[in-house]
């Protein structure tokens, strides 16, 4: 009885963030696709590679914005983030702060790269400098974050990276293999960058879900 009630409460708890995420994702994707149409460079059309890169970048940015809202307002954040309560956000404010800012920087780097010429209007040198700067910021924040994680979070991080590697090996490797055999077009450099980001996100979700940590609720 209690278990059934708790399950119902968890389903209700997950419904709001899922719906909010879906709406925000839809609106952001719609705006992005309009932006890429308007920004199509002289040499080429919008291209599916940059559209997917932009959408993955937006996913990172939206996730990071949601997390930052939770840090600024823990009571509100506890309603849609995967935490026990507002106190958990307060207790781990610094760790979450570094993590979400790094996530935002990575998402912004990928989003920016989707607008680099020839498909977009940002110059190659400027795009590379900005993206490398953002990746460097993410690396520094990740290093700072590592000082505030405990053994479970460290394990999840390692397992997520391992999962991301296997996914990249299967998806990117499989694609490259088929391309080498002349069966399909080779992945573009932007496709590889998108695959790095997407498989890392998928790895994190996979590992958290596998351990039942995506459906946490009040104990």
């Amino acid at each position, binding site marked *: 009885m209690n278990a059934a009630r708790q399950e119902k409460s968890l389903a209700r708890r997950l419904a709001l963030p899922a719906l909010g995420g879906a709406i925000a994702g839809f609106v952001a994707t719609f705006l992005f696709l309009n932006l890429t149409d308007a920004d199509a460079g002289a040499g080429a059309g919008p291209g599916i590679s940059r559209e997917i890169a932009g959408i993955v970048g937006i996913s990172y940015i939206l996730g990071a914005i949601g997390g930052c809202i939770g840090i600024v307002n823990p009571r509100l954040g506890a309603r849609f983030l995967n935490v*026990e309560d507002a*106190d958990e956000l307060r*207790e781990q404010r610094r760790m979450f702060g570094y993590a979400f800012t790094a996530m935002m920087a990575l998402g912004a780097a990928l989003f920016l790269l989707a607008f680099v010429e020839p498909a977009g209007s940002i110059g190659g040198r400027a795009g590379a400098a900005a993206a490398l700067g953002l990746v460097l910021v993410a690396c520094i924040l990740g290093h700072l974050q590592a000082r505030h994680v*405990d053994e479970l979070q460290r394990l999840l991080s390692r397992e997520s990276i391992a999962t991301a590697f296997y996914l990249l090996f299967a998806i990117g490797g499989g694609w490259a293999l088929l391309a080498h055999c002349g069966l399909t077009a080779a992945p573009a450099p932007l496709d590889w960058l998108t695959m790095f980001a997407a498989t890392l996100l998928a790895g994190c979700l996979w590992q958290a879900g596998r351990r039942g*940590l995506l459906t946490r609720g009040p104990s």
Partner: protein
Amino acid sequence: MRNRLKEHREAQGWSQGELARRLGVSRQTINAVETDKYDPSLPLALRMAKLFGVAVPDLFIDDWEPEQ
């Protein structure tokens, strides 16, 4: 692995947050151990046992028996 962490914690009248603070880990870790989603490292298991004044096998239940 099944464990009696929640039982011992409640006997002390501590919240998950209080136990996490005493052990120097996150509340997420305490919750994951109590709900059998995560088996702690040996150092953390030893610290938990020391904190409650019990032996590790009294805290973590392993049904494995060596073959005769």
